[in-house]
């Protein structure tokens, strides 16, 4: 009984089963081979499990590399804008102009600049998420109350100490929310990035299955893409609970 109660109370499992039920309903209503049944899809999934893992690893690696580089550039850049009012005033219009442009539109430019390999795919994802990261971090710095800086000044804290005890911990929640938004956008853009000049990646798998009219395989790719997102979000939750325990309490 306890196990059943635990399963019932797990939002994740409830959410997943609701999705399966919704999918089955659509399948029954539409009655077309374009939307295969969940059972047929999952049966097929286990037959191509090795391939799916390979494609997933390719996609995960691209997203991880892109997110790591975005963090390495985005955090210092965001802090720099947040602490320097003049620089912020100078660069904010540029960021506000670039931010809403659909970055996928730059894909041809990246293909020409960085070739057709992994580099252009990773650069596209970086280009898409880095502005989100910079703005989140900058806003995090700007939201630090003036009295917190006064506290540090009253204790005669050095610049290095101000970063260690005040600025870095203060921006951590914003970094995590920036990352959370970035994961969604990265996975969506991955689909476009993996549609050219590659033979691995979940985006490639979905489009290749579509051209082969293998809809079970196509849906396997969609499901896996969802699981990759879930994996990233859960990993982020764990990291957030570890690095920002005050926000979790």
């Amino acid at each position: 009984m306890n196990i059943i109660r635990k399963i019932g109370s797990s939002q994740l499992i409830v959410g997943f089963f609701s999705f399966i039920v919704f999918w089955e309903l659509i399948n029954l209503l539409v009655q077309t081979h374009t939307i295969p049944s969940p059972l047929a899809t999952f049966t097929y999934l286990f037959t191509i499990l090795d391939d799916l893992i390979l494609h997933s690893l390719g996609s995960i690696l691209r997203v991880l590399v892109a997110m790591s580089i975005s963090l390495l550039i985005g955090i210092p850049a965001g802090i720099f804008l947040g602490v320097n009012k003049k620089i912020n005033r100078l660069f904010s219009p540029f960021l506000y102009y670039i931010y809403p442009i659909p970055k996928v539109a730059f894909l041809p430019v990246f293909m020409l600049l960085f070739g057709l390999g992994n580099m252009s795919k990773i650069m596209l994802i970086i280009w898409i998420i880095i502005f989100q990261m910079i703005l989140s971090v900058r806003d995090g710095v700007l939201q630090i109350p003036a009295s917190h800086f006064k506290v540090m000044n009253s204790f005669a804290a050095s610049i290095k100490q101000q970063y260690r005890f005040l600025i870095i911990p203060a921006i951590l929640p914003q970094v995590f929310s920036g990352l959370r938004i970035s994961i969604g956008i990265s996975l969506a853009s991955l689909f476009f990035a993996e549609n050219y000049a590659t033979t691995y990646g979940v985006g490639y798998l979905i489009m290749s299955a579509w051209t082969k009219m293998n809809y079970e395989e196509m849906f396997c790719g969609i499901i896996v893409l969802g699981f990759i997102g879930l994996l990233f979000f859960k990993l982020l939750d764990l990291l957030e609970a570890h690095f920002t325990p005050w926000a979790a309490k």
Partner: protein
Amino acid sequence: MSIKAFVVLQDVSFRFGDQPILDHVELSLNKGTSYALIGKSGVGKSTLLNLIAGFIQPSQGSITIGGQTVKKSKGSTAFLFQDLGLFPWQTVIEAVMMPLLLKKEKNIESAKEQIISLLKEMELESLKDKYPHELSGGQRQRVAIARSLISKPELLLMDEPTSSLDATTKEHIQQLILAQQQKLKTTLLFVSHDIEEAVFLGETILILNKNGTIQEVKNPYFAQKNAKEQLGFYEACIEIRKLMNMETTVNEHHTKNR
């Protein structure tokens, strides 16, 4: 000017744009004494405190603490803010430890003992692993006070230290502040809108007038050494109110208990 003066303000003026906030202020504070700075709204009480803390620079005049400029004396001065300025990511013990880490205290073991002992005195020991949002207003206040006192500052500046607290908690915090100030022999200067608080905590009461003059009054209630001169709390409040030309009645809860 007193020879022993620890904090000295000479001909200090402060302007905000074209508007003069403080004009030719002269003030000297003795070491180990508690001062309450009162005055009507807008006379520049908080500005004066911010000037002494070095957060803003005077337009004219000089401020010295222990014979040194404000900039050089940083680290021996602590400031307790009206909004407390507790960091949401620091537990009680982390917050209280921070000033020692900033000072690069080498003897961590003795520092830890010092922190635990202060937490006990401030009745915070059982809350040491809590974050600010898990504490009540009074508990947060005590953490901010402990953080200000851990490095044994020579000068403690407080901007309306108990303004956001309920009457009972306020009294408790005031008693804790007084006990710590007397124990550490810290020079205490605090701004207050509350005359009862000023009378309870300030050995000397400084009334700041709009023209920048400061009226220095020996607190009749605080004159503990000469019992004959000691006035009751209620009478002392009336006395100070008269000096301020105010006719507000004294809160009953204070007069009842003191």
